[in-house]
């Protein structure tokens, strides 16, 4: 497996291909490096985090290569932060379920958001693991080639617990 690009985003810092980016938070990263995708503001926190990571990683990759790429992401908490927010909207004395929120109670939506933005028609998969088990993740990524032939794979860990605890550790890899 060959790594083409990698990024790490935490509340403290963002490192892209070894270079530290001084911008503080996810919204700041959006303003500085994206800015032209209003759908970003509709996304939940997990999607925003994964989306920003993918934007920085995929800069300079052409449409042809992206079409048959795969997106394979992992985390521990699934969509738990949005699940909690949705749960608050369906209590007996406060019942107003909203489809705009409910759709984000699926962790794989982040893979869909990235696919839509980049016109990636390849595989999109989301796995929930007990911890950031690099061996297991690498195993799953390598095994992808046993039944498919993506041009490259956008993969890694993307987990959002709360505003002070989140992490995206994403990379682009080829066989």
């Amino acid at each position, binding site marked *: 497996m060959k790594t083409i690009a990698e990024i790490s985003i935490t509340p403290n810092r963002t490192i892209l291909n070894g270079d530290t980016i001084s911008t503080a938070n996810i919204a700041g990263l959006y303003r500085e490096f994206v800015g032209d995708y209003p759908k970003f503001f509709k996304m939940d926190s997990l999607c925003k985090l994964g989306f920003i990571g993918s934007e920085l990683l995929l800069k300079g990759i052409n449409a042809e290569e992206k079409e048959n790429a795969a997106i394979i992401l992992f985390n521990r908490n*699934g969509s738990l932060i949005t699940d909690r927010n949705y*749960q608050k909207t369906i209590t007996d004395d406060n019942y107003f379920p909203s*489809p705009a929120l409910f759709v984000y109670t*699926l962790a794989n939506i982040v893979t869909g958001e990235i696919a839509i933005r980049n016109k990636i028609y390849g595989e999109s998969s*989301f796995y929930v693991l007990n911890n950031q088990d690099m061996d297991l993740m690498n195993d799953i990524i390598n095994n992808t080639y046993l*039944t498919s032939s993506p041009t490259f794979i956008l993969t890694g860990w993307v987990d959002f617990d709360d505003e002070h605890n989140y992490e995206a550790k994403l990379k682009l890899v080829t066989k």
Partner: protein
Amino acid sequence: MGGIMITKIADNIISPLGYDSNANFKAVLSGETMLCKHVDSFGLPVPFCGSLLNRDEIISLANAEIACAENYTFFEKLCILSAQNAITDCNLSPRESNVIFIISTTKGNVDCLENSLEDTRCILASSANKIARYFGNNNTPIVVSNACISGVCAQIAAIRELLSGRYRYAVVIGCDVLSKFIISGFQSFKALSPECCQPYDKNRVGLNLGEAAGTIILKAGKPSNEEDWQYVSSSIHNDANHISGPSRTGEGSYRVLADILKDVDANEISFINAHGTATAYNDEMESIAIHRAGLDDVCVNGLKGYYGHTLGAAGIIETILSMKAIDNGVVLATRGFESTGTSYTLNISNQVRETSKTAFIKILSGFGGSNAGISYRKGGKA
């Protein structure tokens, strides 16, 4: 693929129609359903039509068959009961290091959030660990959470693990239980039908939700006889179009079918067991995808009229029922279908049809623009 063959060695379905695969197949064959209107269930202000498990019966069954059953949630009990039934059936030793557990679910224990927003049982990986550990299996289980396509993706994840040579056996469990959380969400989408759903029909108005658990056990190795089911092909594609609406061109689903047709001759396909949720958009999208793939003449069926949409279980139980159907020489009827309501006329019937062909394709589509398909073939043909 290294010449490794993947064979199905056991299966189980626990649903409102029965607690093993044969009971479920017989019920579906004779047109039964437990879909009905539920008023005041789950504390919902609006009634819904769905297919619900008998909770008391499942809990008694769990108390009788699961050690320390009280330690497990309803969702976990179902997963364990289903897997245990399949494991016993094929005499698998689940504690061996060459066995991996793979779990397909959309929301697992999400109903625990009703007790407390901090309830950690909602974390899918913890729940999966409990299930694998119950069987004495110490490998890290994998949870596939790809919305409605999870059941097929979990089989694909299992197949990849087996092809890689790391494991010899994969226990693939699919399960979801309904809750206020899930039903209110689908209601807010206005995706639910107030009556029994009508897949592909011109009068279809939406889907029904259902509960089930299913298990498929796969083995890396040649089939032991002509009756065994073998994995043939699989594919996953995104529509790259919309997070909650299917593609107007059936893009992802079409690409899935096109991939599978590289490995399977259209003439050997007995039927496509499609997603057929009975929402206007899903069924229309599938008709476009099947037409674009040149499969208009192949029989298509959908099983949501018997079970509703069982979310993470759907891909597992519908695969098992498709195998059972071919074992019995039939294409199951599409319950609820009367007359074509899609742009392209599919080869669908509300009657059971005979078949002598021995391969099928199972397809699914879901939120996040996701689409997946898998094909199996019966018999010793390599």
